[in-house]
């Protein structure tokens, strides 16, 4: 098989020790990877020559054993990029942060999620401890920061007081708890520029526990009650009509293919992920994706 997957993301399980009000995965049924799924993921990594993995959840540090079962013994592991997104709960001391990070058999990059929602559970000092732990262990460190409105960005100034690491700004998608709590980013008007864009995850794949493989890690698969946009095998997903559309067309082309009028688009559809789920979960797409 050709190595056409730049990174495979893996949701290790849905357990999390925070209850953030904007969590996209809060509504997902509890699931953690079965031994069969772990075997499938390992086989897929080797078959497709994947050299980069993203460990996600839930909270991935609650599933260290599963992460290590996936990674242990993979050919060329010392050359793998292994990223993890985490809520940073383990950073209440430098020692604990180092111990937790070292419990993974390989980590090259850690991204802590921190914003006004995570701040309800996470002392900012945890960020400093994890940043320092990553520095000592030679692990790349950054913070992912979600915003529901532009003024949320002002909190970044507090982060910058504790370190000069990268902070990635991400708009809250109206999915899961964020949808229930009306915390999705509010665009002032529909941004037509989104129509000229393609899915930002082309080249990357996700394994969602209990669902399967998908290029999507976000709004579409999380709202996909019929599980038609994820597939049991990676090859099966890459042969699907959905995958061919999402990689071959801009959103304008997809809207045209699915006969969704552009006049129906609203400000909320200004984000690629929200637009994508609107197009593929809409009535026009039902007959094609069953």
């Amino acid at each position, binding site marked *: 098989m050709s190595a056409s997957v730049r990174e495979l993301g893996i949701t290790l399980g849905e357990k999390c020790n925070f209850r953030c009000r904007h969590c996209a995965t809060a509504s997902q049924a509890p699931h953690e990877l079965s031994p069969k799924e772990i075997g499938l993921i390992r086989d897929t990594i080797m078959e497709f020559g994947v050299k980069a993995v993203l460990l996600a959840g839930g909270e991935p540090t609650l599933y260290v054993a599963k992460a290590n079962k996936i990674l242990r013994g993979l050919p060329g592991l010392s050359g793998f990029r292994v990223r993890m997104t985490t809520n940073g709960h383990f950073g209440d001391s430098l020692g604990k942060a180092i111990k937790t990070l070292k419990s993974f058999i390989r980590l090259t990059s850690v991204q802590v999620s921190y914003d006004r929602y995570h701040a309800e559970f996470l002392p900012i000092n945890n960020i400093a401890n994890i940043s320092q732990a990553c520095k000592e262990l030679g692990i790349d460190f950054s913070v992912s920061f979600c915003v529901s409105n532009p003024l949320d*960005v*002002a909190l970044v100034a507090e982060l910058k007081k504790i370190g000069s690491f990268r902070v990635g700004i991400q708009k809250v998608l109206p999915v899961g708890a964020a949808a229930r709590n009306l915390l999705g980013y509010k665009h002032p008007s529909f941004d037509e520029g989104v129509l000229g864009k393609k899915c930002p995850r082309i080249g990357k794949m996700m394994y969602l526990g209990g669902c399967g493989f998908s290029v999507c890690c976000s709004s579409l698969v999380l709202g996909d009650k019929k599980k038609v946009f994820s597939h049991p095998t990676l090859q099966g997903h890459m042969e699907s009509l959905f995958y061919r559309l999402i990689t071959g067309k801009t959103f304008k082309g997809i809207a045209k293919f699915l006969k969704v009028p552009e006049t129906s688009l609203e400000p909320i559809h200004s984000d690629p992920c929200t637009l994508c789920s609107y197009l593929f979960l809409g009535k026009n797409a039902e007959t094609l994706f069953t």
Partner: protein
Amino acid sequence: MTNTDKIVAAFLVSLGLFSAANVTKYVLSLSGNEKESLFSVAKMSNSNIIVCDGSGDILRGNNNNKNA
């Protein structure tokens, strides 16, 4: 627009939070304190504040700043 307004507007557009077409109206609607709080983040030198896509993956930004 004042220079502060322009800097805040450019900053918000660079983060992908607004398009160039609708940022002006938003910035002019901000209070003095709100503008100042965004300006203080915008003017941070070597700020390494970058855009992520919907999945949290970094789309663009400064050079990789591994803590070394």
